[in-house]
């Protein structure tokens, strides 16, 4: 049977033994479980009925374990299903993920949803289509080739109607494992994939103000909760718990459980008012001081860490001769900075716990809820917890979504029978969500006499890039560490490089490098909580590598594009560079640019296994950096939703522009101080350049995610453009007016 399986998407390189045995949920689908390989998440959710239901005539119900984050995944999956089943788009109803039913696909992260969920649905639907055609053939006695299928209706050779999917197959027929008997459509037969004119599933609700977001969920008798958060992970409540009651208005419930302080009221404004009143009376004993924000690179280098060598090849000794280059690059802590603060609703009926969340991993969250509630006299068991995903504001990684869900659970347990909705404040969202890690990279390279790169070393210092729930033996939920008897949050870790890596994501350059070493120093202290933020380490590493390559090319008096091209062999890498240069309307005219105008180029293949993306940037540098134009070329293999790809690349580029020019988390010894939008400024409309995205469609290649491909190359393209404009190398992010001045005074971009 397995010989008839269609070729699955290429599996990631085998993980080292240690990584494979410790494989944890969501870093990658564990394909080494002894079962025959199946495409995407079918591998771990093998029954067709886990993905599809045909019970209702004219409707195909689709279940996915991936969640809508604003990236348009539901729309992409709808297209895939309508394409393979040949049903109208409107017939396809996508159901948001819930632990109560449907596939478990771990996390929605790492730009893997089109591969994992899309790959599974594409093959599952091809199978169901084949089964239905076979059933129609069996019923009529006709050969399968003579059965027609149009808009979900089956026809005989004379045009006689043979019914729809629901008439031919029942859900009992889908209660079977995917057998791989029928292959998905070849590119030439597709009518929907790759188009750009299909509507986004979720957008109409959002544009007419319908209650679609979790923030809009209103349940009968719903109570409203607020948390009064300790300023740092280790600060302790100094106010005696009994003093809290006197500060609370009548009718408002409030309590302290260790360092976790909560209020619950019947209305949101009452909860808000009570929290404000209580806040004024609370005193905290500071924890150990946070490091000095202004000397972070030195802190990262000196902090306790554990060192690994995730990649090494060729010579281990560094020759003394040749053309030698060295430089250091730095990225500060970044905030996810969702526009909507994290929100959750929970309800406890005395036996069952129901949670509504915008978490990226509902199963992981449930696992951590079980861990966090294990200390109760009657622990809440996994099968007593249901977690539903409801859309929230864009999160861009592990923000406060999971933490606020546990906040809501704690309050719901204190208010049995009543749903409790908790909304974080803007300050909570900016200060208490996990942050993107500060990250220092030291690069060195050697070229031989012919100008060919021979040796390369990438050494980095950073906290781990993941402290998501559901992966450690103790809970990763903020309140779990703050309650009485709580244990410290687990240190952030890095996924293995074979699963895309964390801090070392994209630390291996794609260039021809015979001798290479990557050294990853993961901090084993975590003064500020770090976790997954879009692109993980790829943002800092690609910024560093692509800036460094630019520096080397300029030092040699060589065109940065030519230097890159002659160190590349992969045709798709070369194609994405050539495409962006060929398609840009302004790049060719850069020689005559006005003073203060600069042009920069950079590229990367995300995770070295994902999408290829090349960026051209044109900037104007005065007292600060203003971006005029961005052109991006992207190769995501088979294009599912063309406008979805463009939207992700465009959005990824603009968000990265914001990170790169403006963003850094500020803090003093006692906590994060950038707790509002003036303190943590992000991109404004006036700063938006013209962005052009050029998509290379490869209909015969497997599809790849687009959400994280642009960020790293964009940062380097901007830094390279600033160098082109001023002859000044900025190696310290953000490329702000302050860092520009510092670099001018220092004579270079050193930090």
């Amino acid at each position, binding site marked *: 049977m397995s010989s008839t399986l269609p070729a699955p998407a290429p599996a990631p390189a085998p993980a080292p033994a240690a990584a494979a045995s410790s494989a944890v949920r969501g870093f990658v689908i564990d394909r080494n479980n002894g079962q025959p390989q199946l495409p995407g998440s079918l591998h771990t959710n093998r029954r067709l009925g886990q993905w599809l239901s045909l019970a209702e005539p004219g409707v195909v119900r689709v279940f996915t374990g991936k969640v809508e*984050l*604003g*990236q*348009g995944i539901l729309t992409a999956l709808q297209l895939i299903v309508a394409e393979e089943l040949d049903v109208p788009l409107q017939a396809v109803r996508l159901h948001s993920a819930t632990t109560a039913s449907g596939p478990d696909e771990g996390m929605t992260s790492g730009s893997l949803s089109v591969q994992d969920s899309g790959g599974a649905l594409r093959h599952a639907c091809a199978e169901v289509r084949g089964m239905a055609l076979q059933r129609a053939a069996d019923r009529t006695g006709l050969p399968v080739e003579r059965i027609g299928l149009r808009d979900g209706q089956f026809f005989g050779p004379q045009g006689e109607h043979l019914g729809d999917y629901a008439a031919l197959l029942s859900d009992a027929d889908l209660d079977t494992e995917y057998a791989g008997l029928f292959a998905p459509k070849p590119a030439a037969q597709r009518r929907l994939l790759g188009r750009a004119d299909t*509507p*986004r599933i*979720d*957008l*109409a609700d*959002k*544009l*007419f*103000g*319908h*209650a*679609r*977001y979790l*923030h*809009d969920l*209103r349940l009968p008798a719903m109570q409203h909760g607020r948390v009064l958060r300790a300023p740092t992970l280790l600060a302790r409540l100094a106010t005696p718990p009994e003093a809290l009651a006197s500060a609370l208005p009548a009718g408002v419930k409030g309590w302290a459980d260790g360092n976790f302080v909560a209020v619950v009221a019947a*209305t*949101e*404004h009452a909860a*808000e008012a009570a929290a404000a009143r209580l806040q004024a009376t609370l005193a905290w004993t500071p924890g150990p001081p946070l490091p000095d924000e202004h000397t972070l690179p030195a802190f990262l280098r000196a902090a306790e860490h554990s060192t690994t060598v995730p990649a090494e090849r060729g010579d281990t000794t560094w020759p003394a001769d040749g053309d030698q280059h060295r430089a250091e690059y730095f990225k500060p802590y970044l905030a996810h*900075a*969702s*526009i*909507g*603060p994290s929100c959750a609703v929970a309800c406890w009926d005395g036996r069952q716990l129901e949670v509504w969340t915008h978490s990226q991993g509902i199963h992981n969250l449930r696992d951590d809820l079980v861990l966090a509630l294990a200390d109760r006299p009657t622990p809440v068991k996994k099968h007593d917890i249901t977690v539903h995903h409801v*859309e*929230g*504001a*864009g999160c*861009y990684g592990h923000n406060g979504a999971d933490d606020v869900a546990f906040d809501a659970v704690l309050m719901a347990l204190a208010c049995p029978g009543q749903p409790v909705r908790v*909304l974080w*404040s*803007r300050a909570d969202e900016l200060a208490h969500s996990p942050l993107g890690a500060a990250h220092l990279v030291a690069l060195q390279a050697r070229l031989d006499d012919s100008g060919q790169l021979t040796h390369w070393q990438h050494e980095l210092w950073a906290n781990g890039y993941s402290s998501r729930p559901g992966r450690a033996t103790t809970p990763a939920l903020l309140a779990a560490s703050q309650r009485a008897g709580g244990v410290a949050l687990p240190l952030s870790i890095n996924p293995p490089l074979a699963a895309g890596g964390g801090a070392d994501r994209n630390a291996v350059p794609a260039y021809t490098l015979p001798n290479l070493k990557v050294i990853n120093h993961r901090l084993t202290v975590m003064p500020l909580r770090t976790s997954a933020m879009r692109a993980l380490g790829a943002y800092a590493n690609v910024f560093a590598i692509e800036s460094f390559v630019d520096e080397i090319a300029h030092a040699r008096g060589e065109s940065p594009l030519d230097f890159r091209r002659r160190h590349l062999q992969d045709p798709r890498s070369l194609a994405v560079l050539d495409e962006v240069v060929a398609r840009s309307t302004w790049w060719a005219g850069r020689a005559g640019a006005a003073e203060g105008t600069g042009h920069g180029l950079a590229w990367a293949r995300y995770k070295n296994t994902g999408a290829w993306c090349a960026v051209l940037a044109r900037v104007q540098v005065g007292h600060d950096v203003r971006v005029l134009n961005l052109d991006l070329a992207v190769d995501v293999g088979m294009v599912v939703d063309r*406008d979805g790809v463009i*939207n*992700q690349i*465009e*959005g*990824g*580029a*603009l*968000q990265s*522009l*914001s990170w790169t020019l403006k963003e850094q988390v500020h803090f003093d010894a006692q906590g994060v101080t950038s707790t*509002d*939008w*003036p303190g943590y400024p*992000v*991109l*404004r*409309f*006036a700063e*938006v350049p*013209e*962005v052009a995205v050029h998509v290379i469609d490869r209909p015969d290649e497997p599809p790849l995610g687009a959400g994280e491909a642009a960020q790293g190359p964009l940062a380097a393209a901007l830094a390279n453009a600033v160098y082109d404009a001023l002859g000044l190398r900025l190696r310290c992010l953000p490329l702000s007016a302050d860092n520009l001045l510092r670099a001018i005074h220092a004579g270079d971009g050193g930090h």
Partner: protein
Amino acid sequence: MFEINGQLCTLELDEKRNLLSVLRDELGLSGPKFGCGEGECGACVVLVDGQPQTSCNLPLWAVQGHQVTTLEGLGTPAAPHPLQTAFLHERAAQCGYCVAGIVTAAAALLARQPRPSREDIVQALDKHLCRCGAQQRMLRAIQRAAAAAAPPA
């Protein structure tokens, strides 16, 4: 007493309450969103007598006797505002959390200036943050709506 999307609202409420909380909690509207509570992100923007205002920091007394319009009041799926049509056409959002405020502010702009330049639009949206980076397609959608609503003579 004030008018909300064309209907009279006569709730007896603490006049110091912010308008957003009344719109969402008492009136059950979902269009205007809470983003910051300080009037710094624009997610909660509504029209007061046709002028865009952040509702999260606007006390109820300030709208007494005035007309308040939210996203819901601009149009419906059956009778959409040209901006709603254009935003759908351009798929001008990612998560869409900021879009209610942006569409509402843009409606005020188009009402006073039917053919705004890109610069005019950028200025009108100066208050509004979009974290997903959908600004370029929003600018395009607003220009499309302007062209649809006010075709050249």
